[in-house]
């Protein structure tokens, strides 16, 4: 196996994106993605069974698309990587079954990796792609909201905190529904928020009161915020008043961004880590990005935000992490790993 500059194909099926990516060492060659997002729209959120069915239909077409995009053939690959977890278990299993078959048919080594660490690993790709250690990573999507301390991508990742109820992306979807906006909610809220006043309504910042900070310093909670928005909107409606939808969107978005970035900065400051990396689909949110830029600049923290198509779930990040494991001399995973919907972030690779 080429451990200098390995050609690795990565398969990602933890949520609603069927991603197949190919990297050569630190170089991105292909990032093929099929999304079942449209199929979930009428249900107002990701339906696991619908997502899993879509993965099965998209799997081999995406492998073919990635190979074509990269201009390589299967025989050229040095290794295969696949997401073992965390994620939706039925969805993960499609990727695991496929990756095992691919590795056996081609007689190539297989690396089962952690989805969350993959979001961090994507930052090694590209010209200036050299993840510096240690770094704090804030990963925010419809499926997860996690704050990590990364001392070494392939050997030392620690979970500082995570959401204790809804993921931040889920909160965007639920508030969008309250405001009568379509799924997925993020882009619609972002658009309206730009026209509203973020200070119009003071929505609660979950787990930021002193009593909560003692037990949940780096944890998040968005369920109370969502309920608070619903109450506020219902009160207006019951009074027969018009709901200032732009102000609600802006104030809600501000509350989410404030908590996310506030806790990430606190982690950087507390732990003396002058680096913050963002990942996950919520990075598409303009306010989350701008607030991160403002506050990291003020605190003297360097900020890294990978290109958006590498922030959302994708196969390239799994390939990138797999390639790093190969380059650092790690052995392939054993034959009997499965899909682990709650895989802890400390398990960078499943053996």
């Amino acid at each position: 196996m080429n451990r200098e500059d390995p050609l690795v194909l990565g398969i990602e099926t933890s949520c609603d994106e069927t991603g197949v990516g190919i990297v050569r060492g630190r170089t991105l060659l292909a990032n093929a993605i099929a999304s079942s997002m449209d199929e979930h729209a009428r249900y107002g959120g990701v339906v696991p069974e619908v997502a899993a069915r879509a993965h099965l239909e998209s799997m081999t077409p995406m492998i073919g698309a990635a190979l074509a995009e990269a201009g390589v053939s299967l025989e050229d690959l040095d290794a295969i990587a696949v997401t073992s977890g965390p994620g939706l278990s039925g969805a993960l299993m499609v990727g695991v079954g496929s990756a095992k078959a691919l590795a056996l048919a081609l007689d190539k080594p297989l690396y089962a990796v952690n989805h969350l660490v993959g979001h961090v690993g994507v930052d090694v790709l590209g010209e200036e792609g050299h993840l510096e250690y240690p770094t704090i990573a804030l990963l925010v999507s419809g499926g997860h909201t996690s704050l990590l301390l990364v001392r070494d991508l392939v050997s030392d990742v620690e979970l500082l905190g995570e959401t204790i109820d809804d993921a931040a992306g889920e909160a965007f979807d639920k508030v969008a529904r309250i405001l009568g906006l379509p799924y997925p909610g993020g882009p619609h809220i972002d658009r309206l928020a730009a026209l509203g006043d973020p200070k119009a309504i003071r929505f609660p910042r979950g787990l930021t009161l002193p009593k909560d900070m003692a037990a949940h310093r780096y944890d998040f909670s968005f369920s109370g915020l969502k309920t608070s928005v619903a109450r506020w909107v219902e009160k207006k409606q019951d009074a027969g008043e018009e709901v200032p939808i732009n102000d609600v969107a802006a104030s809600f978005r501000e509350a989410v961004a404030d908590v996310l970035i506030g806790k990430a900065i606190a982690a950087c400051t507390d732990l003396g880590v002058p680096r913050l990396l963002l990942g996950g689909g919520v990075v598409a949110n303009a306010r989350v990005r701008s607030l991160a830029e403002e506050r990291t600049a003020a605190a003297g923290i360097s900020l890294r935000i990978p290109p958006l198509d590498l922030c959302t779930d994708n196969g390239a990040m799994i390939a990138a992490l797999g390639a790093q494991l190969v380059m650092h001399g790690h052995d392939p995973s054993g034959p009997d790993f499965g899909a682990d919907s709650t895989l802890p972030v400390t398990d960078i690779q499943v053996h």
Partner: protein
Amino acid sequence: MLLAIDTSAGTSVAVVDRDGGILSQVDVADTMRHAEVIGSLITAALAEAGIRPPELSGVVSGMGPGPFTGLRVGISAARTFAFALGRPLVPIASHDAVAWQHYASGATGGLLVVTDARRREVFWSAYSGVDAEGLPQRTDGPALAKPDAVPFPELTRIDAAAIPAGGLGMVAELAFAAGHPFAADEPLYLRSPDVTPSNGPKRVTR
């Protein structure tokens, strides 16, 4: 020579040959660990048959019916294995494997194959016998029914806890040799996802 994979009940993997018959078959009955065991079973089936992947001429996939989550593991593996080798995928209805095994042992006449569909329901397929090539003739199904509403009580009934991939492979070999069409390359879920479209937000204040 074909590799056959079925995860509609437990996990079963076999290597078959039209002339040599079933060269290997390995099974795990556990209906919860398809993703874990699929790789080792493929390795074992190939090793026992003494062949390497490039020697295969196709990959047979049991298309169900079966509980969703497990069923997909085998179909995903079979499709990808075939894709990786650049060989055809041969989709076969899983119950046909049970019927083939029944008739191959010398039985004749009508047959009803029944498997567990969970949630207090079963999957069933009805067969009339075999044709001149030895292929089971499915006359009805596969379909879903409550246990007390399964049709064709007059037929010999087999309640199968496992689907033998060897039988699946032999059905594929016989159908290919006879020039018969295969099943469609679609999973036989026979149930829609359990979801209801959202009807807008629910009130939180009362």
